[in-house]
């Protein structure tokens, strides 16, 4: 199997192909380690847990943002059809997998991008629980249905796959993007949160809820099944309801 990698050393960029002996069950991350350990120690890619919980290894795999650790080589071709965004429409030949860094962020080296803007937007929504009143003597209890509706959003691992796949982010660098908005929505609907309404109105802006054009790429590429588009739609409906 051939791995064709979009490389960069900060000053120049080029494409390089590596032949990897495929083993059953081998993931894209395994293949990258094979290259780094046996063929080229200068190849750089971000990773940590190997387990789809840390969100470090998202990259474009045949043009689609996915976790390298969670994508078997055999399934690299099974990806959803998406609305176009930078890096999506590349040629992929038979018997090869094309890897490139996530778009909408500057490349540091090879497959490693500078996630600063992504995390700046994440911090901008103040992703910290802010309860009302004093701490209860007992726990803050929730019913199962409420937990379920929150969990759809708390499952986010901040891998930035949705951010990279979002055509609006690519066009409008000010747009908060799907991950940050999904996080904001998760706090807006948390029954234990004291500033839920304030959180809803805080992103009532073109760079917030208003920016989404419902391409639904975010939901389709999320490795954890988080539906940012749905949260955004519900937030907008909530705001409309408040105005009426």
């Amino acid at each position, binding site marked *: 199997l051939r791995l064709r990698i979009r490389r960069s050393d900060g000053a120049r960029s080029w494409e390089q192909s590596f032949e990897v002996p495929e083993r059953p069950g081998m993931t894209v991350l395994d293949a990258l380690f094979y290259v780094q350990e046996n063929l080229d120690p200068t*190849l*750089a890619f971000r990773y940590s847990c190997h387990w789809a919980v840390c969100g470090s290894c998202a990259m474009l795999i045949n043009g689609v943002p996915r976790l390298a650790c969670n994508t078997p080589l055999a399934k690299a071709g099974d990806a959803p059809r998406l609305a176009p965004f930078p890096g999506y429409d590349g040629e992929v030949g038979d018997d090869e997998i094309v890897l490139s860094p996530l778009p909408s962020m500057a490349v540091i080296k090879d497959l490693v991008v500078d996630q600063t803007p992504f995390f700046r937007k994440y911090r901008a929504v103040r992703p910290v629980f802010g309860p009302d009143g004093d701490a209860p003597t007992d726990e803050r209890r929730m019913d199962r249905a409420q937990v379920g509706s929150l969990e759809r959003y708390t499952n986010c691992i901040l891998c930035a796959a949705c951010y990279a796949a979002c055509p609006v982010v690519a066009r409008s660098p000010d747009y908060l993007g799907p991950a940050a908005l999904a996080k904001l929505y998760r706090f807006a609907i948390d029954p234990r949160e004291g500033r839920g309404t304030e959180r809803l109105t805080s992103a009532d802006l073109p760079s917030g809820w208003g920016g989404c054009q419902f391409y639904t790429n975010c939901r389709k590429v999320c490795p954890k099944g988080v539906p940012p588009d749905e949260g955004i739609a519900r937030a907008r409906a909530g705001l409309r309801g408040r105005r009426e």
Partner: protein
Amino acid sequence: MGGVAVDLDGRTAVSGLFAAGECACVSVHGANRLGGNSLLEAAVYGRIVGGTASLAVLEGATTAVGAKAAEEEERIAGLLGRRDGESIVGLRRELQRNLDERLGIFRSGESMVEGIKCVTHLMERFESVGVGDHGRAYNQALVAYMELGSMLLVAEAVARAALARRESRGSHYRTDHPERDDAGFLHHSLVRAEGGRMVLGTSPVQLGGYEVRERVY
């Protein structure tokens, strides 16, 4: 369960160097740390130690770490200039195999003596290992080199402490000494570097309100 010896605020024996989480040993878990419980040290002590470290910076504490930075910078520059040498990956695999076979879940005095010999030999070879990437940006070959150096050090420390502990306790199980021996070994093993050599010592265990008991599954 082992790690860098720290006090309750995360201070190590080196001024200005703090440790928290899985690399540190606050000793809240006893001789075995059950799966999933690393969160305690990561979250609770991460916060506490972060506070201690920030305060130390605000108070303008002079640290041994700062003084060493220039020296370390020079060492790294030297490493990046090293064009050839044995592969990091091969050496790391040998270390992994050695530790797995001789210092793994079940160990014996005999297997550990062999294990230490092997670690010492690998340490010698490590001196001439090459770093395959000479760039400054996101150099994972350099990271791998530094990690391997630390792995070798930790491997030796673990092996020497385990060899001296002629009993079984917590996650340490010796086929040649399968019983716990409180009279001989109810203490922490502490490894220290003195003049380039590892010196093994002990420190007392604070049991608090707990009675030492075997964990049965």
